[in-house]
């Protein structure tokens, strides 16, 4: 468990943030720039002293202003990957990787040098200096350097923000591998919801220095607080399911979700893998009767649980489809025509193809360590 309860007064704003997130796992701090994300993790790392508060990781108290406890950052064993990588320019990539490793003498080396080089694909970069590396390569070395310091917590401060889209794709799979293969808890700071979707297990929403909501990603995806941060087109429920069947030729996979079944576009996943999909609210069609002769692959029978008016004459409707909840956005006119109200039975129609790009493996690989 990572327990954080911190207060920091800044001239621009006051940060008062509290959350307790399960570990291991990836805790995403999500919010717009200026919401206090970096300030928060600098305090967790011990680089910035809070005015008041506590930081507790597992059973260890790292910061407690009342008890006057402030473990020095160099003794916290908290790895930090900075937005701008901050590789030491006078050392090679290998020298950078070994910097933290050499200083972790007192703890057993659970993460070995060769292992990290393998996991992050660094073998060909070892002899190069930071200025000879691309942005993506630099971030991978920075990631490896932090890992090799044998951290008990890894903080990642928008590690992809300084990279263009192509370079992000160069680093993201490695982050997924870290999450799946190592049991190190991570705090991932981002303002890109797609990164959160792909990586996070627990989501903390920050706005103007306050925690708006915190919880598992699927749960938070349904909360109205998220909608105040996210662009309307990105609103949609996040559902996790197990792959029960794969149609390699059609490029689709069947997921078991709750009591139902969902066909999504997804390639290269084995049967039995856990998969996360986001069903965008704007892509969901609601029907009050079963419909035939449509190209839509999924018709999930469910019950309307909530109708929330939005701006621009649209409504957001929550449908319980036998456990999982689906969010659908329709116009107020359509809702009135169908007379949809809480308690009504509806079919939620989901095009398999509209789930493309949001299907992600989660903990797909077997845990390497117990």
């Amino acid at each position: 468990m990572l327990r954080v309860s911190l207060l920091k007064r800044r001239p621009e704003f006051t940060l008062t943030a509290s959350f307790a997130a399960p570990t291991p796992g990836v805790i995403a701090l999500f919010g717009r720039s200026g919401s206090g994300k970096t300030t928060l993790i600098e305090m967790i790392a011990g680089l910035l002293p809070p005015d008041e508060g506590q930081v507790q990781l597992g059973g260890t108290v790292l910061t407690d202003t009342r008890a006057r406890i402030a473990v020095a950052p160099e003794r916290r064993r908290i790895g930090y990957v900075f937005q701008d990588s901050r590789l030491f320019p006078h050392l090679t990539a290998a020298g950078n990787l070994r910097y933290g490793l050499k200083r972790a003498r007192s703890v057993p080396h659970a993460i070995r040098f060769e292992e990290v080089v393998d996991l992050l694909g660094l073998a060909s970069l070892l002899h190069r200096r930071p200025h000879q590396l691309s942005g993506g390569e630099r971030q991978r070395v920075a990631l490896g350097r932090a890992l090799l310091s044998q951290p008990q917590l890894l903080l990642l401060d928008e590690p992809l923000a300084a990279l263009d889209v192509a370079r992000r794709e160069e680093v993201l799979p490695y982050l997924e591998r870290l999450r799946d293969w190592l049991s190190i808890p991570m705090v991932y700071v981002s303002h890109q919801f797609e990164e959160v979707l792909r990586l996070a297990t627990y989501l903390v929403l920050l706005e103007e220095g306050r925690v708006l909501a915190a919880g598992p990603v699927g749960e938070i995806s349904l909360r109205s607080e998220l909608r105040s941060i996210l662009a309307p087109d990105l609103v949609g429920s996040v559902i996790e399911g197990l792959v029960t069947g794969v149609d390699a030729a059609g490029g689709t996979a069947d997921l078991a979700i709750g009591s139902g079944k969902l066909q999504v576009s997804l390639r290269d996943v084995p049967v039995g893998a856990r998969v996360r999909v986001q069903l965008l609210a704007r892509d969901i069609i609601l029907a009050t009767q079963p419909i035939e002769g449509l190209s839509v692959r999924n018709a999930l029978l469910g019950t309307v649980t909530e109708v929330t008016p939005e701006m621009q004459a649209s409504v957001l409707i929550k449908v319980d489809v036998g456990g999982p909840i689906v969010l659908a956005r329709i116009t107020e006119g359509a809702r009135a025509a169908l007379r949809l109200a809480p308690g009504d039975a509806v079919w939620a129609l989901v095009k398999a193809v509209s789930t493309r790009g949001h299907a992600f493996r989660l903990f797909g690989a077997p845990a390497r360590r117990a």
Partner: protein
Amino acid sequence: MEPVSSAELEALRLSLEVATRSVAFSLPLAVLVAWILTRARFPGRTLFDAFVHLPLVLPPVAVGYVLLLLLGAQAPLGRWLQAGFGVHLPFTTAGAALATAVMTFPLMVRAVRLSLENVDRGLEAAACTLGAGPLDRFLTITLPLMLPGILAGAVTAFAAGLGEFGAVITFAANIPGVTRTLPLALYTAMQSPDGDPLALRLAILSFVLGLAGLLLAELLVRRVRRLLGR
């Protein structure tokens, strides 16, 4: 013109020795003072800063005179050094080196300080999260990154130290073989009726030495910068 005389060689050797000793003495101190001026916050910092830079604006003779007042055989500090450590500074080569060190100190502090200000503190924070304590961080990150400035400061101070005149002649006098460095030998040659050829050769020598020093500094800095990847 006659071949290079032993007096000339003696002056050259002395100049090199005095400059080397002055740099060796003042470099660690310059790093410390630069660090204090850049990183420490304390009342009187501005005054301390001005004090360090004083030799730049004071007449060198005045600096030599102050040293004589402080460290002379009759002064308390001078007597204490003589009695406690057997160190006698006025009118010695070591004294010439000290006077030179005081005069070139601001030059060195300036260069070192500039390089320290350019060290990205984010890198030190990164080293911190990797388990490096304050001294460890300074030695493995800050100091190597300051190296171009330290080298530039050292070579510039060395080149300037070869030619220090006023403070040396006041504090250490003009003793052949002991404190008669290049500029003092040049001055002495100019004072003697038939010393013009010697004076000219010494002037040319000083010119060549100074130029070589500055070029060397530039070259070293470029080399180290490339090593640091900038």
